[in-house]
């Protein structure tokens, strides 16, 4: 899908969030000189092509009581990577699961998963359950709990 200047105008118009009014797409259209129908069609296309990954609420975990956000990182042998990644992603407590490059020797981990929980104890217990359930006992891992959060712009890209 080729993106035009008009598309970037549309993206800029909804960047900060969709207006909270009865006909939000008409409202957005008025700002950039499009009809409601044009806005609806184009947003639909962007969603279909995956340019818009998802459309909905962006939650702030911390304000919702999920204060123990943990990044659990794993050093998975290449031949097990897809299997472990897919199975981790399937678990209800895992909210993100990515393969990333190792940075040897300092950083040996290549699979990153995010677990949000209400306490560190609960997250640790969940990780232990995952290891048993998915047969990961011979895989090196580490849990990085979050401390202070310095900046959250409300991610627009992910």
């Amino acid at each position: 899908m080729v993106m035009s200047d008009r598309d970037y105008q549309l993206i800029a118009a909804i960047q900060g969030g969709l207006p909270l009014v009865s006909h939000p797409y008409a409202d957005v259209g008025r700002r950039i000189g499009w009809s409601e129908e044009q806005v609806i069609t184009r947003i639909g296309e962007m969603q279909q092509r995956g340019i818009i990954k998802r459309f909905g609420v962006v939650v702030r975990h911390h304000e919702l009581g999920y204060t123990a956000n943990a990044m659990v990182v794993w050093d998975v042998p290449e031949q097990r990577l897809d299997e472990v990644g897919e199975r981790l992603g399937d678990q209800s407590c895992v909210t993100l699961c990515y393969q990333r490059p190792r940075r040897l020797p300092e950083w040996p981990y290549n699979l990153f998963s995010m677990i949000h929980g209400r306490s560190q104890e609960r997250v640790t217990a969940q990780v232990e359950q995952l290891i048993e359930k998915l047969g990961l006992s011979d895989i090196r891992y580490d849990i990085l709990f979050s401390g202070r959060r310095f900046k959250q712009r409300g991610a627009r890209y992910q």
Partner: protein
Amino acid sequence: MDDIDRSIINNLQGGFPICDHPYAVVAERLGIGESDLLERLQQMLEKKQLSRFGPMYHAERLGGGLSLCAMRVPEADFERVAEQVNAFPEVAHNYARDHEFSMWFVLGTETPERVEEACREIEQVTGYRVYNMPKKQEFFVGLKFEV
């Protein structure tokens, strides 16, 4: 936050309708009125329980760059480095984590090349190495953040 707020969050993490009166459609699905839904969304935004209501873009497909970066910053230097890093407009979230790799931030840039550039600039300003760890593969997870 009551049960209705919770069900709004649980139901609206994706799949928002693209039609002329989307909030009315969602409100009906949730069994509440449209104006009630709009008011509650507004309140949750004001209370900062939600950071935004709208689209989440796929940065790479928009032509931009995106990466997760980490730095090993000793506690004594942390505040200074955090300030310097956060001054970069491309830095989205920045988290402290209790680990030798103590600072973790997301870079979202207008072009893919800008990611590496920004990393080098951050290294120059702070004096610490930036470990750039862009996504190689994403494994599917459902939208299941339940409150």
